[in-house]
């Protein structure tokens, strides 16, 4: 049984009179890739921002576990990485410098870089080497010296992913990361995530801790099923009347199931998960749906790799 790495307990969020999230409970295990889907405006990004720490919940708490220690989230922190839809790279840094930026600010300080300049130069060389290796892994070997405005959307997003991954965050948050990409690039990026999932599987087989835990917010059900090993549906369409509310108190989790895991070498076959996709559409996206949120608070373990 894998250990919990992120727990959301009784999280509700509202902006004034506008109630967005209601009683969210979620337990994410180390090594899981959780895809969050839901109708527009259901609060997927609000939930992600709550985990990131930029929009703290109005009620409830989020706990991050790292080995023996645990921490209630009270702001953005080094333990959570983020990849946004709009790339968000530092415009003044090249691809390699962007990836090395986190290593620099995390491992050194401004006085250290100023007063121990020679030591810093040596460390900088090491950081740049690590950044180069990470970019190679993202198949960006030719773009080391390019600035973000000189790169395509797909290249920028790979740099953003490399920038987050090099820091080995406890949880990597992905906010519709491929939403601005064309279909072909999107598929390439999804395969990169599957490669990372493969590394998780290899680590588990070798009796080690899986290195990547991800929380993927997407509006593409196919993507959530294809890339993730667990799909969580967030929706405002649930049986809140039966729970005694006069009006909808916000979106909550109405779906939480394991999804099939694919190996990168296999072609994408949407037929394999058509049944699950229809189930999600019916449960999460249908205004007539009246699921009880209490049904979906179970923790889902990893499934076996299909075609792996």
């Amino acid at each position: 049984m894998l250990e919990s790495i992120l727990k959301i307990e009784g999280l509700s969020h509202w902006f004034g009179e506008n109630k967005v999230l209601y009683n969210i409970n979620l337990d994410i295990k180390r090594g899981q890739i959780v895809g969050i889907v839901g109708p527009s405006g259901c609060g997927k990004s609000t939930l992600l921002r709550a985990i990131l720490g930029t929009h703290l919940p109005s009620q409830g708490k989020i706990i991050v576990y790292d080995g023996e220690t645990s921490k209630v989230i009270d702001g953005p922190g080094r333990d959570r990485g983020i990849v946004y839809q709009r790339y968000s790279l530092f415009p003044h840094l090249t691809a390699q410098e962007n990836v090395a930026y986190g290593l620099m600010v995390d491992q050194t300080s401004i006085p250290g870089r100023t007063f121990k300049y020679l030591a810093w130069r040596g460390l900088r060389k090491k950081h740049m080497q690590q950044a180069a290796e990470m970019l190679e892994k993202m198949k960006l070997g030719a773009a080391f010296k390019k600035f973000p405005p000189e790169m395509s959307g797909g290249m920028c997003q790979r740099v953003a992913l490399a920038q987050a991954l090099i820091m080995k965050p406890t949880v990597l948050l992905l906010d519709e990361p491929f939403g601005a990409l064309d279909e072909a690039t999107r598929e390439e990026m999804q395969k990169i995530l599957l490669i990372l999932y493969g590394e998780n599987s290899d680590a588990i087989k070798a009796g080690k801790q899986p290195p990547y835990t991800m929380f993927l917010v997407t509006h593409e059900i196919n993507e959530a099923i294809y890339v993730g090993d667990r799909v969580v549906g967030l929706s405002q369409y649930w049986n809140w009347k039966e729970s005694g509310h006069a009006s909808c108190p916000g979106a909550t989790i109405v779906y939480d199931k394991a999804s099939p895991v694919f190996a990168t070498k296999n072609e994408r076959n949407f037929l394999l998960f058509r049944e699950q996709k229809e189930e999600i559409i019916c449960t999460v996206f249908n205004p007539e749906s009246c699921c009880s949120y209490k049904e979906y608070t179970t923790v889902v373990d990893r499934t076996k790799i299909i075609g792996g």
Partner: protein
Amino acid sequence: MIGKSISERTSFLFSLVFIILLVGVYTYLSHLQHKRNADDRTIPTWWQLWGGIVFLCEKHDDDDSNNSDLLAAAMADGKMDGAQVSSKKGYLEGRILWEASKATLGRLFGGLSIGLIGGVIVGILMGCFLKIDAALSPVMYFSSRIIPTAAMPIFFKLAGIDMEMYVAMIVFGSMPIVTLSVSRYVQEFPDELRFKSYTLGASNYEVITTAIFPYVLPKVFELAIIMIGPALVYLIAAEQIVAGEGFGYRIRILTKATRFEVVYPLIVILTIYAGAITYVLKYASRIMCPWYKDKDGA
């Protein structure tokens, strides 16, 4: 068609033709004026203008060149057409162009540097910390609306008529505008980048110095270029009233003496200085901010 692009060669040719046209019109007007009055200096001939440039580059006695009344009187009498031997030993000392350039550019650099550096620091703090913004922005808005030339007598009274007064006036004229502009640029810094910096392990100070400052730097260069014009306006206006040296002072006394063959070159040289500073700032921006593309793609 509106906005139709043209080649660089066509663009250069059109510019050249227009300049030649202007030179031709000036030559004709000068010729007409000198037919009426052979000694006229309001529209000097090209030869007179050359004489004016030589006059600016020659050495003149300290006493003569620094005493406005004496100099104006001497010029009006036409006694200072030729060079006089300066008592100063250095190669450049005593030459009007050098002395005026040294005084004016020194004041300009002093004032603009303090105005820009101060404005950038305060602007970044205002943009980053809303409490500082709340405290300072009303004062900055009010100060940015005050016309420094209108407040000039106050500067004379408070700071005297030395270097400090000119620097203070330029700082007063430029810093509030720079501060407010930089503060706005900082507030435009994307939230996503700010949050990401924290997730990568950056401290507040590191976010400011390694993410926000480089982000606003190219815009600071643009601001510096924009502020050269107003700073020169304040400076030349002040020099024309109280200075004992500088372009403003020289233009005033030479205009009084109707020595336009010297005044025009002075104005052109001042314009060239402003253009050169603009070029250096643009070049520095290209070198220091190679990622940045402005609206012209430069």
